[in-house]
């Protein structure tokens, strides 16, 4: 979904950075690239991807802000920094948001932001709240020093609705829909993040008319089954399963869509189920669907 949004935005002329929060390589793969590192890597026109690695981000942070060279080969201090960056939960969560905030603040020599839009492919719902709430948690711990100022700045970005918005992805199934509603509440309450929209992914939007059901039932009825099979060259019996699946998936899409709309104060955008293999083609197809929805 992040890949599709990134493509849609890049096509609309925006300079986009897509960020993979858990470095799995899926996002880069969906954008037709091999796995990328911690530096922005151009994968399509107007579209770059980076993959977050806690330790690398921490080293970069120290290098950028404190002019400290890579500590890897120095003294036992390296061990301490590794411990802080990867072993202690607070700084690790903070680095995720901090790196994104850093990219948001980057400017070109003419003062223009380097990115028009940064899209982060976040961790699963249980963890994304912790990541987004990390600046808040850090603020209660660190009361002075340079970090305090930086945490404040990151916190301000996260809470500023004109700069940060969360998009919740749901599926047209009971539990994912319930989780999406709960996530919306937690994002708002625990992390103070505004939610912009809910994307109902893999929505089954094809209309199934009653005529289709009536026709198939008639074709499969005892009096006609054999003649129909002969005419079609094969028995249409398996079509009963696909039609039933379609009816149920459509019903589930309608029902979950209704539930999400009534529970969430944000637009719910259905994104149709794709039948293509995962990859750039799918991301493009979803991007088109999103562009249509936006129009």
């Amino acid at each position: 979904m992040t890949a599709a949004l990134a493509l849609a935005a890049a096509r609309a002329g925006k300079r986009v950075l897509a960020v993979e929060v858990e470095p799995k390589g899926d996002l880069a793969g969906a954008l037709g690239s091999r796995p990328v590192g911690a530096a922005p890597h151009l994968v399509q026109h107007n579209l770059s991807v980076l993959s977050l690695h806690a330790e690398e981000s921490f080293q970069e942070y120290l290098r950028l802000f404190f002019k400290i060279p890579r500590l890897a080969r120095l003294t036992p201090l390296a061990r301490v920094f590794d411990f802080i960056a990867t072993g202690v939960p607070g700084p690790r969560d903070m680095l995720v948001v901090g790196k994104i905030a850093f990219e948001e603040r980057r400017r070109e020599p003419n003062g223009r932001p380097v990115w028009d839009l940064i899209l982060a492919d976040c961790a699963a719902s249980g963890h994304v709240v912790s990541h987004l709430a990390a600046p808040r948690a850090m603020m209660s711990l660190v009361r002075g020093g340079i970090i305090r100022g930086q945490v404040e700045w990151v916190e301000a970005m996260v809470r500023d609705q004109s700069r940060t918005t969360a998009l919740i992805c749901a599926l047209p199934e009971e539990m994912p829909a319930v989780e999406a509603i709960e996530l919306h509440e937690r994002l708002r309450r625990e992390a103070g993040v505004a939610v912009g929209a809910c994307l109902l992914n893999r929505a089954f939007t094809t209309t199934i008319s009653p005529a289709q059901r009536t026709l198939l039932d008639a074709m499969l009825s005892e009096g006609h089954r054999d003649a129909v099979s002969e005419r079609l060259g094969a028995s249409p019996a398996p079509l009963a399963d696909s039609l039933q699946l379609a009816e149920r998936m459509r019903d589930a899409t309608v029902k979950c869509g209704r539930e999400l709309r009534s529970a969430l104060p944000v637009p719910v955008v259905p994104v149709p189920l794709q039948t293509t293999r995962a990859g750039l083609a799918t991301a493009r197809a979803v991007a088109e669907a999103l562009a249509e929805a936006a129009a």
Partner: protein
Amino acid sequence: MSQGVDASRIPIERRRGERRRSPRPDTGGRSLAERLGSLEVVVCCGGGGVGKTTLSASLAMALATTLDKRVLVLTVDPAKRLATALGIKGIGNDPVVISRARLRRAGAPAHGELSAAMLDMKSTWDRMVERYAPDRKTAARLMRNRFYQRISDAFVGSHEYAAMEALYELHQAGEFDCVVVDTPPSRNALDFLEAPERVSDYVGARLLSWLAGPSRFGVRAMNFAAAPFMRLADRLLGSDVLSEVSEFVRELEQLYGGVQQRARAVYQLLRSPSVGFVVVTTLEPGPFAEAEFFCTKLRDFSMPLRALVVNRVLPDSLRDPRGEAAASALAENGNVARWLTGELGEHVRPDTTRAIGENHLMFAALARRNAAQLQRLQRIGDVAVTRVPLFTDEVGELEGLVRIASLL
């Protein structure tokens, strides 16, 4: 390779609430619950959004009812409705027994006993502090420390350790024949496999304490290595924070012996033959990649992967070549509608026949991709794969668990 539960062959209409078992060629005809029946701990891993919590609860139910055992499912952060279905009123490590009457009403066989608990991170950490602190004063000081408070309830990494700690306690208590653990949906869920060293990087923590804290004589242990660190830390955090951190680390150090011992014990438990891992996935690319990751990681650590459960599988009937032939004829041949009008004695519109055909062809394509993914998965895991079909009809939460349990 095993077909596991081939639920997809059961016509959709007949599946609902029905307890039905199809042959499982490579598992000696045994169900997943039967195959896992000798285990005392089952750890379920998988990416987000695959239905892991629901499947963990269903598996616990299957183990309890099929084998007449006392089984506990320990969940991490379940959606409220599932928690309600299981009868968990609030978070707490204390197991709640799900009443027989409720299970019976939901259609579960009246055997065994199912309990549920929801991981309470804060109290797990607190209990650990109380257990390992040298005295009550140290424990109280540590619990008051702001860093401790934040780390124990706010941050991501603390979930995994707390889950394993709670698991160990529940297993040791011996009240259950089997504990099914639902791990957090992230790759870090398996970080505890890198224990005991990983639980807390002892060297890192000690160095930090040494660099940051006052020495025994009340003077900062300044030396060549510490000087740049101190300057940096003061600039970064302000000096009072550093002293608080160092106090925290020093206090924590006193716990370390106990924690490390416990981590070793957890590690031993996880490697014992009474523990098995189950990887849960769907055939979507994201979760699928996660399943691959978990299988590889378990293999790297020589942890026993006992089963792969694939959720939301499409019925095999969709791949029946006859269906595709009939669907193609309907989708592509405009004359079929006219012929059907004559055959059925009712007007049939060409767009209706086309829609039925195209719908089937779309699902057939999806089902073919599913099948290819399943084959890949079997190669990766090299264990029996249990399939849970895509259920799209509406049932109550507990009924849903019973239905899935009947397939495991």
